[in-house]
């Protein structure tokens, strides 16, 4: 009965702070801070004995001791207990290393967000004062250590969640400076700051920067890339640059762990790719949807910091609101808790972070949920302790219970992930912080209560939980009473018969027995004592949880995604009308054999062999449609229109494979799309040709080996004619200025190319030099004849060719000049009147240009119209009497030629890629539907399969709706049904964002 009961009163936060400042510092006696009063040096030597000690995940010592002194671990195991140690009996208790959070903003003040935005006054340079860099979102000079302040409230919440150490940084900007490693002790900053520069931190989010550049994700990526180069260059201390403290700080922090905050699974890959280019392996702070692309995550070879921010079930009670929640959002709700398990299964190194949780009290529950969804307990612990420490190179200090490491550990009532386990204490740097003291001593059991005078005996049973036991009197009828234990003080009351008066006692829960005084039911004073007679045999009432039933993964993560990615197969299309686009023209009753993704043979009555046979009788087979001007499948912004020259930005960096428009356009026979930067500035960004391989990741979507292109633009958009009154500062504001922007850019590029060793590598200039050397090709947004003529002159002056004029609605006026120059044209069939520069646009444009001898394509610039480009092509039959075969070429072989891939695709010819569409009718008729669309011999859209997918979507939605309804019924907090986002862009869209047809009808060019 020794140590019978020793709960400790919880100290207020203020008391803790005072004790930290005045007494409890376990550092050496000498320090710079003077003492006001009497010095109180303590070594804080404690021995925790008889404990189950988990040194690290899987490394468990039973009945072992942990000795600490001066805030560090002295021994773990069976080492001698020093004489001056305060001995704490931890019989029945567990000791774990305190958790390490590798991703925190603890103690750093959030950066102030100033108002601004693209409709505000333009800001071309950083507003940060001092000898820093040009861009406000590159903040390498920020050291979290310099701004770090202990935050008692936040520290307590983190400690209560099990954490002892965090790597903290100011979460603002693209380069966020260095992170600081701090413990969560309530002590002076000098003591808790254990590594001043522990990491360098990055993201793609410009944060509080009010500077215009970058406004898009691709701009952020380009800026990051350029800063790598600038920092390398700065190492040579270029006189021209002077002092640049930002670049200096960037270079100084290169050896630290580099942590990248990715806000999406694709961002994780994007960050990793930039890192690879510069020999940096980022540690990736994940967003929570990486489980949707595990093979790609493996390929990064990165370590990950996984958040546990699982979405709440969506309130789908109102079916008409639930309609606007996409299946992908519902599925994410269901599958998000599988993230850590998926990482474990794939052997990807990872740790867990509490970052992003609204309430830290949810943290352990979220870990448990991950375990319920397949994460092993051992891995979970490891991810919270040693792995976390290792990932941020802090395992010399924390992460496991080893001599020499910080005395950061948790004392718990049992196995840490057991739902009933209580976290009693979190010791940080050798100081105790009580999380919960009730139940430290389990008082439950049977007691004999003796009252004097009279020597009356009662048998009392204490059960319930260790923290809040309940009392009952055991006699013929068991009667419920009450008990309150507050530190050493105890209060007991119970009736002697049902509904009878209460016997009321109070006293002290002493070390060996409980005793005190009270009033009996007659109101007479009595003395009492209670002796323990038998332990409570606990019944584990927790039901073992069955593994959750989960839906299948879709690739991409969309209702129309594949459960398993499709494979190439040999296909024989029999007896179709084949539009070859070659000199053979249109072949009736012809077979086409597809093998290994290529067109293997064209002829009559071809043998099928092992090929799948598709009957083409009465149907038309054409080459796949190529959309020369598209903005689908792009993440977070199509324009980096913040400067007039942004040739450094690349659509290739922001390809979004999840865009449902890929699938929708396959249903309209599109097999390749040229993804262009927008038209907000004169020299826009680099474009990317993709094939519509629905389900593939961004790299696999890219049309391998195709020539690089870039978007230019002229006219109203680049001179900001329709941007409102405030946008009157950026050069150029006239077509006169546009010429000068171009001339200036290419003049600089030519000089740059000639510059010798030691030049600053400039990605903007590199792209222009590629143009000058015919290694990169221009697609130029243009409308009126004067500007077309102008660009031809600029190109001639600098000896390069303008490959393609896009939109080019007045191309018909200067078709002869374009022909002479060698430019091609990609235009709309019949758009006009939406702005001043299209007043002379005519639907005969394509025909005239084609008849003058230009290579002409019809393109979309619109996710909806792209689904029926065959119809847009057919308008040239109506307007200008083009032949049907020539009209089809406008959307197939002609754009293939414009894009330099005519050797690979665009016609039906042996050896070419099997990018084919089978139509139920003449493809130039409005009555034609694409029945099957294949890319590289894989059928990515099949109208019959599409019907099955619709049913699957409906069934899966229904399953998840029912599941979420039952969650709501159980009382699980829900989130409001929000309309799922779909990113969609046109040329002129300035901001990364969402266009929803039903709310903003007007999204004209």
């Amino acid at each position: 009965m020794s140590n019978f009961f020793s709960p400790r009163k919880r100290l207020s936060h203020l008391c803790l702070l005072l004790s930290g400042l005045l007494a409890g510092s376990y550092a050496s006696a000498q320090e710079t801070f003077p003492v006001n009063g009497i010095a109180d040096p303590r070594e804080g030597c404690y021995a925790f004995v008889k404990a189950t000690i988990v040194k690290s995940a899987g490394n468990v010592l039973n009945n072992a001791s942990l000795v600490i002194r001066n805030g560090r671990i002295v021994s773990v195991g069976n080492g001698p207990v020093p004489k001056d140690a305060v001995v704490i009996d931890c019989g029945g208790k567990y000791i774990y290393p305190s958790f390490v959070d590798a991703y925190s903003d603890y103690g750093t003040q959030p950066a102030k967000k100033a108002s601004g935005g693209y409709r505000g006054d333009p800001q071309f340079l950083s507003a940060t004062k001092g000898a820093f860099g040009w861009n406000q979102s590159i903040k390498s000079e920020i050291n979290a250590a310099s701004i770090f302040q202990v935050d008692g409230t936040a520290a307590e919440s983190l400690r209560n969640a099990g954490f002892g150490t965090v790597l903290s940084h100011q979460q603002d900007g693209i380069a966020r400076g260095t992170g600081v490693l701090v413990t969560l002790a309530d002590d002076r900053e000098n003591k808790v700051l254990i590594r001043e520069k522990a990491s360098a931190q990055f993201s793609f989010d410009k944060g509080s920067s009010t500077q215009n550049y970058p406004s898009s994700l691709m701009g952020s990526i380009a800026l990051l890339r350029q800063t790598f180069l600038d920092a390398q260059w700065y190492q040579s201390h270029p006189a021209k640059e002077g002092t640049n403290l930002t670049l200096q700080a960037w270079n100084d922090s290169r050896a630290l762990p580099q942590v990248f905050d990715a806000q999406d699974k694709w961002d994780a890959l994007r960050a990793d790719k930039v890192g690879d280019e510069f020999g940096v392996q980022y540690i990736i702070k994940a967003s929570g949807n990486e489980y949707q692309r595990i093979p790609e995550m493996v390929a990064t070879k990165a370590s990950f910091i996984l958040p546990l921010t699982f979405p709440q079930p969506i309130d789908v009670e109102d079916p008409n609101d639930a309609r606007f929640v996409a299946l992908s959002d519902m599925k994410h709700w269901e599958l998000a808790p599988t993230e850590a398990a998926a990482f474990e299964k794939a052997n990807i190194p990872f740790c867990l972070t509490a970052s992003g949780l609204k309430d830290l009290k949810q943290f352990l529950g979220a870990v448990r949920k991950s375990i319920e969804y397949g994460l092993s307990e051992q891995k979970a612990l490891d991810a919270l302790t040693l792995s976390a420490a290792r990932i941020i190179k802090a395992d010399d200090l924390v992460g496991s219970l080893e001599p020499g490491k910080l005395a950061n550990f948790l004392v718990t009532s049992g196995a840490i992930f057991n739902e009933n386990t209580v976290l009693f204490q979190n010791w940080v740097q050798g100081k105790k912080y009580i999380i919960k003291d009730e139940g430290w001593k389990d008082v439950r059991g049977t007691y004999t209560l003796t009252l004097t005078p009279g020597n009356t005996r009662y048998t009392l049973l204490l059960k319930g939980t260790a923290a809040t036991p309940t009392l009952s009197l055991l006699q013929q009828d068991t009667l419920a009473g009450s008990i309150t234990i507050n530190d050493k003080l105890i209060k007991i009351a119970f009736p002697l018969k049902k509904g009878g008066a209460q016997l009321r006692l109070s006293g002290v829960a002493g070390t060996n027995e409980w005793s005190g005084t009270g009033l009996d039911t007659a109101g007479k004073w009595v003395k009492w004592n209670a002796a323990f007679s038998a332990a409570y045999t606990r019944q584990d009432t927790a039901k073992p949880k069955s593994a959750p039933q989960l839906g299948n993964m879709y690739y991409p993560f969309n209702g129309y995604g594949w459960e398993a990615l499709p494979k190439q197969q040999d296909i024989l299309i029999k007896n179709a009308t084949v539009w070859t686009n070659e000199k053979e023209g249109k072949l009736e009753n012809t077979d086409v054999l597809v093998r290994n993704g290529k067109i293997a043979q064209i002829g009559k009555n071809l043998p099928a062999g092992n090929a799948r046979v598709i009957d083409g009788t009465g149907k038309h087979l054409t080459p796949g449609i190529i959309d020369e001007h598209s903005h689908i499948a792009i993440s977070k912004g199509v324009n980096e229109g913040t400067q007039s020259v942004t040739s450094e930005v690349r659509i290739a960096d922001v390809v979004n494979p999840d865009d449902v428009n890929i699938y929708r356009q396959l249903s309209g026979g599109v097999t390749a799309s040229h993804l262009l930067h927008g038209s907000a500035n004169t020299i826009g960004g680099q474009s990317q040709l993709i094939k519509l391989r629905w389900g593939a990741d961004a790299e696999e979507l890219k049309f391998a080996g195709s020539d690089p292109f870039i978007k230019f633009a002229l006219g109203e958009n680049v001179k900001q004619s329709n941007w409102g009154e405030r946008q009157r500062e950026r050069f150029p504001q006239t077509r006169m200025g546009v010429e000068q922007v171009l001339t200036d850019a290419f003049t600089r590029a030519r000089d740059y190319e000639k510059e010798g060793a030691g030049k600053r590598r400039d990605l903007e200039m590199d792209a222009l030099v590629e143009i000058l050397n015919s290694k990169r090709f221009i697609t130029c947004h243009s409308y009126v004849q004067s500007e077309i003529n102008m660009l031809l002159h600029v190109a001639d002056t600098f000896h390069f060719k303008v490959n393609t004029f896009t939109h080019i609605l007045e191309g018909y006026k200067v078709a002869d000049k374009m022909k002479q120059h060698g430019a091609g044209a990609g235009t709309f069939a019949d758009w006009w009147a939406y702005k001043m520069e299209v007043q002379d646009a005519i639907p005969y444009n394509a025909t005239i240009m084609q008849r003058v001898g230009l290579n002409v394509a019809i393109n979309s610039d619109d996710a909806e119209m792209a689904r029926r480009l065959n119809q847009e092509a057919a308008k040239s039959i109506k307007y200008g009497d083009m032949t049907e075969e020539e009209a089809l070429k406008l959307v197939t072989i002609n754009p293939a030629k414009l894009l330099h891939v005519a050797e690979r695709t665009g016609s039906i010819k042996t050896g070419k890629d099997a990018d084919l569409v089978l139509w139920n009718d003449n493809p130039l008729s409005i009555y034609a539907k694409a029945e099957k669309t294949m890319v590289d011999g894989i059928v990515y859209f099949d109208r019959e399969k599409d019907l099955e997918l619709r049913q699957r979507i409906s069934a899966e939605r229904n399953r998840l709706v029912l599941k979420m309804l039952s969650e709501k019924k159980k009382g699980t907090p829900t989130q409001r049904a929000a309309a799922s986002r779909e990113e969609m862009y046109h040329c002129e869209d300035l901001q990364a964002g969402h266009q929803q047809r039903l709310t903003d009808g007007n999204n004209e060019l």
Partner: protein
Amino acid sequence: MKRSLLTYITALSCSAVMAQETIYPAPPQAKPVYLTNATIHIGNGQVIEKGSLSFANGKIVAVGNNLPAPSADVKVIDLQGKHVYPGVIAPLTTVGLTEVEAVRSTNDFSEVGEINPSVRSLVAYNTDSKVINTLRSNGILLAQVTPEGGMIPGSSSVVQLDAWNWEDAAYKADGAIHFYMPSLLPPPATPGRFSITKDRAEEFAEKTEKVRSFLSEAKAYLQEDKHTAVNLKFEAVSKLFTKQQKLFIHCNLVKEMLVAVDFAKEFGIEVVIAGGADSWMIADVLKQNNIAVVLAQPHSLPVMQDDDVDQPYKTAAQLQQAGVLFCLSNEGFWQQRNLPFEAGTASTYGLSKEEALAAVTLNAAKILGIDKITGSLETGKDANITISTGDLLDMRSSVVTQAFIQGREVSLDNKHKQLYERYKYKYGLK
């Protein structure tokens, strides 16, 4: 000096303007016309092969296979198998109210204020818009010129597209009042940015209540003839309550449309749903309540990413199947020339070709309240006729060769054709 130079340049450029200004509105029909040897699409589902159609004084006199031989003073046109259609009617358009979308000074479709029923689009309709000629030449002969902005931006009028001024153009003045219902679409959630704080439903209720109380007060006001102060807004909706005017409620989502249906019942007025993207979901309800739909363009993306990829294409067929009276629309102004192709797509996805035609002719006329005088090629109706070499609904074959409005043979010339000729000339093309 500078000023006079500018004046000079302006004058010069004016005189150099294209021959647009010589495209004249046609004079009244002087002589009866007899079209023969044509495939005649009546507009009501009926097709007459090798048929004839005669019209005089702007009205259709006869249509069929065995018409009496025309007398000598009749102009006979042998169409040699061409197709004859009712003139296409474009509902819900800003044609004539805007010329260059991005240039504010050319925009006359949106007034200040939330409830402006007395505002009339007709008086701003610019018959000299260059856009109008490009619609006529694709067979679009009538348009419902419709204001936008706020909740009740005013009344729309149907115009015929060959006129000297808006008075000449007026075909049915102020036939509809428009109500743009606020959206009930749950706002999209952007993680970490704006979470939904205000319930969209509250805002919706607040705004629709404004319109509801406006109508209630108007109805009460109109019970009494004498008023100390005349309320123009109330006066402007008087015909709604006598059903001489319809209320077009612009909305797309199921709950919005159900509210629209309720408006019809509550105020005893004739309601038409304009938009109706999700109308396929409640087609039966709309049918039961006799609510007509002016369907938003089929050439749209599905409302939601999980929707059938061809949902907007097939909505028309679903309404047809449920027996809902509907017609098709197209957004904007210059875009109206593609309205027949919207019908073509609706046909690809389920409507018969004649049903698709009705969706841009007779059904539109019914919904706009002009079916007694136009919308089909039936005896007694206005001779609003489009003639095409092939299928009008398919761009592969649609070439409009002639058109008549009220029996007047209208010019099919337009700025685009003229520029085409100009540059064929430049390049020596035939």
